[in-house]
Each structure stands twice: as structure tokens, then as C-alpha cells.
């Protein structure tokens, strides 16, 4: 126990504090941040590069929970669906079901070049060339893979104005 405490103290706080909600900056991060969002991630056939970066985002350098985000194990508790991969035909149904299981209001964020447009896998018989073929996408975060900083900025944008409440339930 003593050694664990010593390592925790040695580590201290790492990384930069997460971007704070506030007046809109030149970097395009929205003016204020109203919600604390739960994220459900679905890999719709990525190469797993995007998953590596999403896991890195959850590490101590990025203070994800300080910024108001946490990952949810179930779509039932999620506000944002984070989708990676070009959406393989084999995953399309599971992706639709996950989206359907989320309560309203909800947002969909396409993460990585593949989720945005199919990326290097575009045009294959086995993929649908991006999330938009299956779900309405609110925000695209391109990159191969997008780094945790880009992911965090994207999440802040997805959580910003207009507020989630303007969406209507079907």
C-alpha cells in the first residue's frame, strides 16, 4: 500500500487541464458547455486505430471527466454515440440497434476518416462508406486516427450550442 501511494504521489497530476467552457475562442470551441455527457462508443469495423486514441483520451493526461464526459457501458445511459469505422455491412444492424436503444435527445459523432467517408476502405463491397449511410451524423472528426486532442475538441463541439434539448423525439 505504501509503495502504491508513493507511486501515486510521484505521478502527481499529468497533462494539461482540459479546455474550459468560456467565451468562444479562435479555435472554434463553443462559447459554453452546458451538459455533462455520457458517451457510448461503437466500433463499426474500424482497424482499431481509432479505439487506441479513444482509450488514450480516457487516460490521465486528458482529464476527460473534468471536462464533463464519461464513457457509458450501455447505450441506455448515453447522450452521444461515438462511431468509428467505415460501417461494415456486418455491423450496420448492431449500430442501428445501439442508436435505437439510446434515449432522446442524442447526438452521433463520426470519429476518423473511415467513419466520415469510408477512408481507405471506401468502395468495398463489405462497407457502407461511413456512418451517414446508417445514422444522422451531427459531427465529423476526421483523422487517421484523430488524436485525443481532436477528439476532446470534437466532443466539446458536440456538447455545445445549440443545446441538446432542441431535438425532438420522433
Amino acid at each position, binding site marked *: 500500500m505504501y509503495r502504491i501511494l508513493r507511486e*501515486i504521489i510521484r505521478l502527481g497530476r499529468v497533462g494539461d487541464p482540459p479546455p474550459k467552457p468560456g467565451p468562444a475562442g479562435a479555435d472554434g470551441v463553443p462559447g459554453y458547455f452546458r451538459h455533462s455527457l455520457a458517451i457510448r462508443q461503437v466500433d463499426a469495423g474500424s482497424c482499431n486505430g481509432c479505439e487506441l486514441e479513444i482509450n488514450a483520451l480516457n487516460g*490521465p493526461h486528458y482529464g476527460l471527466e473534468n471536462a464533463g464526459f464519461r464513457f457509458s457501458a450501455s447505450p441506455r445511459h448515453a447522450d452521444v454515440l461515438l462511431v468509428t469505422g467505415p460501417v461494415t455491412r456486418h*455491423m450496420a444492424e448492431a449500430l442501428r*440497434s445501439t442508436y435505437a436503444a439510446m434515449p432522446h435527445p442524442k447526438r452521433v459523432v463520426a470519429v476518423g476518416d473511415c467513419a466520415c467517408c469510408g477512408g481507405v476502405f471506401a468502395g468495398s463491397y463489405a462497407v457502407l462508406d461511413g456512418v451517414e449511410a446508417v445514422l444522422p451524423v451531427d459531427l465529423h472528426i476526421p483523422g487517421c486516427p484523430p488524436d485525443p486532442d481532436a477528439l476532446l475538441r470534437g466532443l466539446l463541439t458536440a456538447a455545445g450550442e445549440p443545446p441538446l434539448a432542441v431535438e425532438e423525439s420522433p
Partner: protein
Amino acid sequence: MPSPQLRALGSFRRWAGSAPGWSGRVAAPLWLSLGQAIHGQGGRLMGLWGEDRRAAEGCFLVHGAFLFEQGLLLAEQEVNAARPETPSLAAIFPAANRMERTLYDLLGIRAQGLADQRPWLRHQAWPEDQFPLRADFPGSDLGSAGDDRYAFVPVSGAEVHEIPVGPVHAGTIEPGHFRFQVLGEEVLRLEAHLGYTHKGTERLFQGRDIAGGARLAGRVSGDSTVAYGWVYARAVEQILALTPPPRAQWLRALCLERERLANHLGDLGALGNDAGLAFALTQFSRLKEDFLRDQERYFGHRYLMDRIAPGGVAFDLDAGQCASLREAGRALGLAVARLQEILAEHGGLRDRVVTLGRISPPLAADLGMMGVAGRASGQAWDLRVQFPQSPYDALDVRMALESDGDVAARMAVRFAEITESLRLQDQILDALPAGETLLPVAGLPADGVGAAWVEGWRGEILLWLRMEEGRITRCHPQDPSWTLWPAVEQAALRDIVADFPLINKSFNLNYSGHDL
């Protein structure tokens, strides 16, 4: 040379290049004898795939890659185009089961004698009578219905029940389905159903030029982008009869060892977390993130994607950068050693991982295991040690080997490999040859067949490539996960369902590189 027994089965010729390998054609009736001869010498099946050669040769080809103590044997078998069948090797090599089912899914070649004829990579996205890797695949009639008809092997009994898990899981991981049949808490049987990330990668390779293929090869599996980039580059270079500059070869090995380090760091943190020790996740995540930031700073990409290019490498390091990497490596080694001691003494963690998910060495040998999971079960295979190719022939790699075969052993192998990879990094940085790093390959006449293998962080990765007039006509990457997934099913038996995440993470197998 292959043994006289093998020579009697076909005419095998030695490859050009540094890797000890032979290739040749075997008549279909001798296919099983070949498998038995390899198996009899302690050899293993590395991969099995097919090729539509009807336009060029009037037949299909089935390719088998076998590894035995002298090197790699690539055998091919002509398959009648009107009646595409091949003798099944699954009775000799269990890993052949899913490879042969895939052979039917993608090419329509039926494995004769294989009892299990369920589809493997094909769900319901394309009709049963269409085969994506045939040249005349119409690509029409494609669907995206869920695969709810897969016939899992049933287990019956009054108290037995089933737990379906996936393809979407609770964490941020790749999709796959696991079907547990349990009695109370205890797992009686586990069957995996994969193929959810099938992207048609092999067909996408077809028609690409050298550079286009390299980009795709680097994305077969993101966590092994260096390993796939390297085998692809080496296969291309074999076709071009081109040797990359020595400095490039050493820098490639540096990338491969760093890929191993990054993944092992991540896995050890995640394993601690799955056992309820959040401390380990935080500590290892921090080490990994600092490591990735160094890769961005010195190599130009956090995961080293597209750093290896056919002809060499697409980056270079100056003396100052080498010194910084050496310094960071020393600090990392000290930090990991401290954590290793803490984890070894942590009773709560030991309770969870010791004896859990055990694969005994004899079972591991039967399954043909290798890589991290194989070495944790006493299977002494490491291509860097047994068949070292430049620069590993100058590095004297020490193999990590454990025999308990449990989660703790797979952790121990990772710890040992972190230490070893850091030592190799030092050696590489100290002895890095001077000179250029990249030879031009664009416009060279690429025509022929190449194959390459490398010891990736999970295990051995193989890539086979045929190019005609500068374009890829067939490319098959083979991930070690093909052979290792059945071992996960065995490892979960007799443990409880709640321990499965820990067992699964200790293997950390590939979906994308398997589903292709």
C-alpha cells in the same frame, strides 16, 4: 533444405532473400501427406488462403504456409475450377477449421472432410452462392441484415443456460460475439463468432499500386500497423529484388520494438484495471501516453502509421533525437520495473490472475499457439530468435518464456518483453548504420510473388503478395489471431463468466486483422 520426406511430396525451391523459405506446388492427393509431414516434424500451420487463377491458369489455387524448424514452407495446390474442393487439414491443425470455412465464404472452395461447414466470415451481407474473391463476383444483392442465424453448438441440460455477449461490448473495444454456455457461474463452453469487422480488405488490395497497397497494409490492424507495414514492404521488395538501405532496416526494427512496447504497456494497464486495480491503468496509461507523444515528436505519428514504406522508411532520426529516445527508454524501464514489483506483490491482483485462464503447454502445442500467448504456455516460437532477419541477426534477441499458461504468465511475458525491447532499442540506437533511408520504388516493374513474415507484438504476421504489371492481383495478410482465438475459447472453460474480460484481455487478440 526441407527434409527428404518433404522433398518427396513436391519440388520446392529456395527463395531469394534472407528468410529461410521454400515454395512449390503440391498435387491435391498429397496435400494431407504434406500436412502430416510438417506436423510430424513439430511444424505448424501459419496460414491458409485461396486465389482465383482461372483467367491465368484455368484453376483456383489454395496456398498453405507452414512453419517448421528449418523455416517457412509455402505450398500451393491446384484446385479444379469446375469442382472446387480441397482436402481439409483441420484434423491435423485445429486452426485450419476457420481458415477453410473462410476459403469457402470468400472463394467457394469447399474443404472435403471438414465436419464444420458453417460460414465463418460471411454473415448475411452477401448471398451464399456469391464469392467476393472470385474475379466474377457481381457485388449486387448485398444486404446488411444482422446475423441471427449462426448455428452455435448447443449445450443441453436442465441447469444449463446461455449468455450472448456482443457484438457491441461494454468497453471501447472491437466488435465480436461470444456465446457462453454456463452452469451457474462456471463456463461449460464458449464459442466466438467473428467477422463483424469484415471490410473486404483482401479485395480492396486488388488493383492497387505499390503505394496504395502500402497505405492499406498499414490499416489492416491499427495496433500492428508497423508489423503489417513491414511485411508488406518486404514482400514488395522481394518482388522487386531490392534490398532497402541498412539504416532503413534498423529503423524498421526500432519501430517494431516500439510498437511492441506501446501495446504491452497498454495491455498491462488494462489487465490491472480488469482485475479492479485502477492504479495500474492510470500508471501504465501515463507511461504509454508519454511514449506515444515521443513517437509523434520523433517519428511523426503516434502509432507509427505509414513510417515504413516499400524501399525503406519515411523518416529519419538525428543524433539528438536518438539520445532523447535512449534517455526516455531508461526512464521508462525504471518506471516499469517499479510497477512490476508492486503488481507482483499485490495480493488482490495475484488472486485474480494466478491459475486463471490456463492453457497447458501440451494443449498449446496441439492448438499451434505462438506469440505472447504461446510463449506464456511454453511454446518457444519467436521469429526474431529462430529466423532472425536483418537487423535481428545482429541483435541477439532473448526470448521470454513462461510455462504456467495462465493470465499471470501472459502478464509476465509482457513484462519480460518490455525489458527486452528497451534493451533492443538501446542496441539499435547505438549501432544505427549511417546512410540513406529510402530507395525509390515508384515506376519499378513489379511483377511476381513475394512473401514476408515478422514477429509482431501479438505473434507472427505473414503476408503473401502477387503483383502483375505494377498492380496487386492478390494480397493475403495472416494475423496470428486466427490460430489464437480458439485458445481463448479453451482458456475460459471452468472459470467463471465474470473472469472472462480478464482472460480475454490477457490474449488481446485482433478482430480487424482477423476479419479482414
